[in-house]
């Protein structure tokens, strides 16, 4: 029952995302035929292009055609390259996903221990230092951080290459750029959630039983504090998927975000629509997984 409800809801979300992106693109000033033909094109050439792209037909009909094709898994063609949008996404989506996951790995490895440590040393120097660091992590623009990492580690020290996604080493700098900001968010959430559970009776009981501090924190407290942390990880992963345009530009990462922005600038409607649809689908799937993970961690949660 739950799965069915969720599936139906996801379908609705996707339909909404497709409709919204379709409508909003058409409300945007700018004309795809003219964008394609260029600012110096003769008027009759612009009209030829418009006709060849079926953009001369009424918007409602374009919408129905698009939806009809979408139902069969056909997301149309790029106006510029004539490549099927599905192919374009197949080429870009894995790069985006891989970078999101590796950034999230960095964020978890840094954020969770930092948050736990801060909670345990509440009010002391370590806590303040950790929170100042996380404050910086949230505030530093990824553009600046990325540039700094490139200049430091790639240009001066020559430790990491920074363009392309072919080797593992290529992941280090962009993952740090994206991951450190997210780590800050996770650290704050971990700290708050841990503070909450560390004050609970069962933690006092555990300590009273003479359990080691490690067991108290890692097993009794962390497990109970995990649900909100997992939730924020899920949300942040969604944000990472859609929000890495700047990092993609900086590190020459052939991801979806860059594809969407480039296509938006060129008013390549089909590609933008396809990209948004895939991001929405990924986001919806992540939400579902997060819900399931929370349920596994805390059986009291009812889905």
């Amino acid at each position: 029952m739950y799965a069915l409800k969720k599936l139906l809801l996801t379908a609705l979300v996707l339909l909404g995302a497709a409709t919204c992106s379709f409508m909003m693109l058409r409300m945007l000033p700018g004309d795809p035929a003219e964008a394609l033909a260029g600012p110096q094109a003769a008027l009759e050439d612009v009209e030829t292009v418009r006709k060849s792209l079926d953009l001369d037909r009424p918007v409602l009909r374009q919408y129905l055609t698009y939806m009809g094709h979408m139902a069969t898994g056909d997301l149309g063609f790029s106006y510029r390259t004539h490549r099927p949008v599905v192919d374009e996404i197949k080429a870009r989506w894995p790069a985006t996903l891989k970078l999101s996951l590796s950034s999230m790995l960095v964020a978890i490895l840094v954020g969770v221990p930092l948050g736990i440590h801060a909670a345990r040393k509440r009010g002391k120097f370590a806590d303040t230092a950790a929170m100042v660091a996380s404050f910086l992590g949230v505030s530093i623009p990824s553009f600046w951080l990325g540039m700094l990492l490139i200049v430091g580690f790639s240009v001066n020290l020559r430790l990491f290459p920074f363009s392309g996604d072919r080797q593992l080493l290529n992941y280090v700098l962009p993952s740090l750029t994206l991951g450190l900001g997210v780590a800050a968010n996770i650290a704050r959430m971990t700290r708050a959630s841990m503070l909450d559970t560390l004050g609970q009776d069962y933690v006092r009981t555990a300590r009273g039983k003479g359990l080691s501090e490690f067991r108290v924190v890692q097993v009794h407290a962390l497990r109970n504090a995990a649900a909100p942390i997992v939730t924020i990880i899920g949300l942040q992963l969604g944000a990472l998927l859609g929000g890495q345009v700047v990092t993609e530009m900086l590190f020459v990462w052939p991801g979806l975000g860059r594809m969407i922005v480039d296509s938006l600038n060129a008013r390549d409607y089909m590609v933008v629509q396809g990209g948004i649809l895939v991001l929405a689908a990924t986001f919806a799937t992540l939400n579902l997984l997060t819900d399931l993970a929370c349920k596994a961690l805390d059986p009291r949660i009812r889905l």
Partner: protein
Amino acid sequence: MMSKRWLNWLLCLMLALAGGLAPAAGYKDLTVGIGTDASTLDPHLCTDSATEVINKNIYNNLVRFDHNMKLVADLATSWSMAKDGLTWTFKLRPGVTFHDGTPFNAAAVKYNLERVLDPKTASARRSVLAMIKTVEPVDGLTVRIVTDYPCGSFLYQLAHPVAGMVSPAAAAKWGVQKFGLNPCGTGPLKLIRWDSGEKLEFAPFAQYWEGAPRFKSLTYSIVPEDSTRGLLLESGQLDVAFRLPVTEAARLAGNKQVGFITTPTIMTMYVALNNQKGPLKDLRVRRALNLAVNKAAIVRDVVDGMAVVADSVIPPGVWGYSPIGAYPYNPAEAKKLLAQAGYPNGFEFTLWTPVGRYLMDKQMAEAIQAQMAAIGVKMKIQTWDFQALMAEVKKGQFDAVLLGWSASSADADQAMFPVFESTQWPPNSNRALYKNPKVDQLLNGGRKEVNPRKRAAMYKDAQKAIMADAPWILLCYPKQSVAYRAGVTGVEVLPTEHVLFAHASK
């Protein structure tokens, strides 16, 4: 029986021959950093200059420009125009083949030009060749082209990227939809793979008619962020970088490992004043605005010398250019003219500008704003996304808009007719809504004049008349600069902003 010694000699000879034939011996991989991915590698459909730059290395035209913008032979070796001014005969280069082995000949020329004109191709540059009436092969290597009217700029139209020659066999095989992903021309570069958003990898075409290129491979790496492109060049991960911004170029100027090829372009940057609106209707006001702008200061301080002050509406690289003389910087005279026009205390108007589309566009607008304030004119700046700007400008309701115009055929007709002829008002390209019957007559006459001397005189008169009418605030001709690592040689940069790698090596 052959002696052992003879066998040894034969072996050595064979090895030497094999070594001489192997194209990759000692050659290196070249990596070129570009800002945006290519759109379509079909020259007949391509409309953006960023992709034309690549296509120019895959395809040849019948004629092409050299670095002085002189027309020279490309796939045609000689040509002549009949007395009627309509019939052109081209002798074609023998022994040229396309990447797929298809021979280049008169039938291929016919196929190509007709492909551009075919409505089914839906080329957005069809009008560049629309004057062509018929294309007929005379023999295998001679082709005759007849135009609808005596077209003064005909050879220039044929040098336009849209007139690039594609392999008829490959084009027929892939069709209009897919040829752009499977390009096949006669040029030095042959596509190996294209990773969308990441890179385009090319092999040298061993049978290239000018001789096989001297590199192992050439990869255009897509590096959208300007400063990243600079850093990659600096760290040696790129051999050549296109379109570095002024700030990056200045930063790298002291680096001994990095060199620059800096050349003029055929672009004019200007502010189109709406000649049909408010105070800007008045010639004295438009002249005053031209006098108020310190062009030399903009060139020196805003673009760091990467431009030349414009002294005519078309740049020196365009055929028909005639130096008319820029409006001097004279704020006192400007104020006097404004007072005569009835605006002693100035007036207010809004300048629209794109951001990052043209060389330092927004920064130029800000410099102009300060200079306008000095003569009491309050100029507001409104910045736009480029596509939104073009859509809005089409409606013709603006006061003034900062733009660049470069005639891709490098001829006065394309450089002036669309922007100054009065039938070309928005939604067409005459964005100043300029109208002068005398100029109209000259521009229409020049289009159909095939005598170069008479034609040049007409365009000179037109440039003079337009300068006197001041429909634009005329700014500058931007330069371009291509950066390369020490050791890279043979890169050819044309004022059309095309960068040719046929003779490049590292």
